[in-house]
């Protein structure tokens, strides 16, 4: 994979910000879009914008075909058994909420347990908090190891025969750590619980095989993997989805509507009420084509290489603390850090003045921030279009930031 060539496919990266060539290091928040995806969206709106699954006109058929073709691309991308198991949602958050509300309300009782971990994103905490409140179930957290990873031993202690749902992120948006989902799923199943995976930070960066992981649900978002915003996916095992009730009702999802009673369409459409996210799904399909062309394995390998380079260069900056595992192979391309005596917001502002975009704040993971004993951190996240030169610019910027705050004032 030649990253300088890949980079050229992302028009947004070819610009100056505050008088410097843009270095985009915030892909964990949202990724940039390649020209292939932008063109597909443009083509949809220019040539065949139409509602799907209704009417007999040519544009409608074309839109429906492309929308459903995108579903098949998603199925193949995560190796699901059938398209019935692929539900388009607004994003990871909606997908997890769907499981919490539909599966959770039906299957949880007082004193049952839901198990998550300290590193979860708010989108994989609050739906379960709400479910616990509504059902009287207990929400438990797997503690983290010194380096921020999850040990299977701790997981075995936390997951018990009372546990009904385990929900863990595949890759941490803060620590970059890759969690042992397959092993955690086995532990959940041994205890009779289902396994939900927040795959928002995994699907963009590595090969996903839901059948190999054997998880019950897997949620992810299009916009973090070169696709448009507003589209995401909920994968669920058919045996669960068939028994689950939709959480939204209206057009598109019905079979027969009477005055007092209605029946639902078959899977997956019973979970897609209203006009679906047509352009988003088609755009996600194009993003998947693009990622397949590059190869998910190559993307992860590239990120390991960048992470290793960045860990080495950044560790050399005095007063800089890096959170999470120090071994590049344990993490995806996310590096969270703090610079001594400079608040992360100030770091981000100074870097921005150099054209370098990073994230500062709590990264929607307040319990994790508490565990790290910090109120906020700075985060640089890499993707397939980033290069070693980007990291050199980051390191240069960080050194300047430090000098600015120590010497100028």
């Amino acid at each position, binding site marked *: 994979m030649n990253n300088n060539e890949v980079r050229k496919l992302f028009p947004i990266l070819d610009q100056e910000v505050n008088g410097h060539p843009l270095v985009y290091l915030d892909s964990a928040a949202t990724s940039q879009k390649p020209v292939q995806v932008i063109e597909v969206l443009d083509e949809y709106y220019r040539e065949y914008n139409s509602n799907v699954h209704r009417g007999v006109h040519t544009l409608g058929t074309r839109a429906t075909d492309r929308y459903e073709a995108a579903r098949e691309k998603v199925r193949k991308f995560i190796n699901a058994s059938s398209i019935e198991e692929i539900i388009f949602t607004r994003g990871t958050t909606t997908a997890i909420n769907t499981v919490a509300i539909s599966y959770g309300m039906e299957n949880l009782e007082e004193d049952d347990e839901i198990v998550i971990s300290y590193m979860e994103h708010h989108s994989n905490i609050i739906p379960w908090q709400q479910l616990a409140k509504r059902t009287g179930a207990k929400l438990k957290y797997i503690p983290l190891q010194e380096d921020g990873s999850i040990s299977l031993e701790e997981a075995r202690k936390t997951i018990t025969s009372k546990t009904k749902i385990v929900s863990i992120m595949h890759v941490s948006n803060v620590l970059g750590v890759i969690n042992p989902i397959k092993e955690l799923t086995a532990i959940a199943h041994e205890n009779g619980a289902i396994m939900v995976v927040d795959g928002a930070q995994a699907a963009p960066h590595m090969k996903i095989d839901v059948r190999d992981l054997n998880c019950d649900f897997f949620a992810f978002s299009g916009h973090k993997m070169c696709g448009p915003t507003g589209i995401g996916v909920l994968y669920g095992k058919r045996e669960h989805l068939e028994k689950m009730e939709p959480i939204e009702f209206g057009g598109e999802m019905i079979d027969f509507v009477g005055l007092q009673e209605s029946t639902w369409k078959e899977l997956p459409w019973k979970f897609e009420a209203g006009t679906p996210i047509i352009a988003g799904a088609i755009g996600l399909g194009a993003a998947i084509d693009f990622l397949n062309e590059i190869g998910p394995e190559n993307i992860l390998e590239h990120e390991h290489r960048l992470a290793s380079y960045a860990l080495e260069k950044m560790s050399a900056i005095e007063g800089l603390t890096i959170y999470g595992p120090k071994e590049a192979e344990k993490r995806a391309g996310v590096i969270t850090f703090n610079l001594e005596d400079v608040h992360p*917001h100030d770091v981000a502002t100074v870097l921005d003045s150099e054209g370098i975009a990073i994230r500062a704040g709590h990264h929607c993971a*307040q319990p994790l921030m508490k565990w790290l004993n910090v109120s906020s951190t700075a985060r640089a996240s890499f993707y397939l279009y980033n290069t070693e030169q980007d990291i050199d610019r980051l390191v240069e910027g960080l050194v300047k930031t430090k000098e600015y705050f120590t010497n100028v004032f």
Partner: protein
Amino acid sequence: MSFNNLDALYRQVIMDHYKNPRNKGSLGDGNLTVDMNNPTCGDRIHLTMKVEDGKVTDAKFEGEGCSISMASASMMTQTIIGQDVETASKLSHIFSCMIQGKDYDEENLDLGDIEALQGVSKFPARIKCATLAWKAME
């Protein structure tokens, strides 16, 4: 140093308030307590004030945050101590206009150090940092 554009934001006086905050702490005998946080970034401020006969006689703050939010809190306490409540709220309005780059009338009030925060208006992403303490005071 090649950060000339940043000097509009990080003025010497701001960094001085950040590194040597005035009125830091909590008033044991305060009669007004406010906690504010900025949920998008985790900055938080705990403000205690003593208001007697319509006058702010003392104020202290504690908190965590970036240079702009902490300096702004420090400057604010310095500015409002000794002011009557009406003037303090006028100052807050003036500050709000200033920070958003809107026109304002100083009404012969002494803005003191807070004028140094004017440059924040050029950094939209940082406006909320500067206004946190003032929102608490309101």
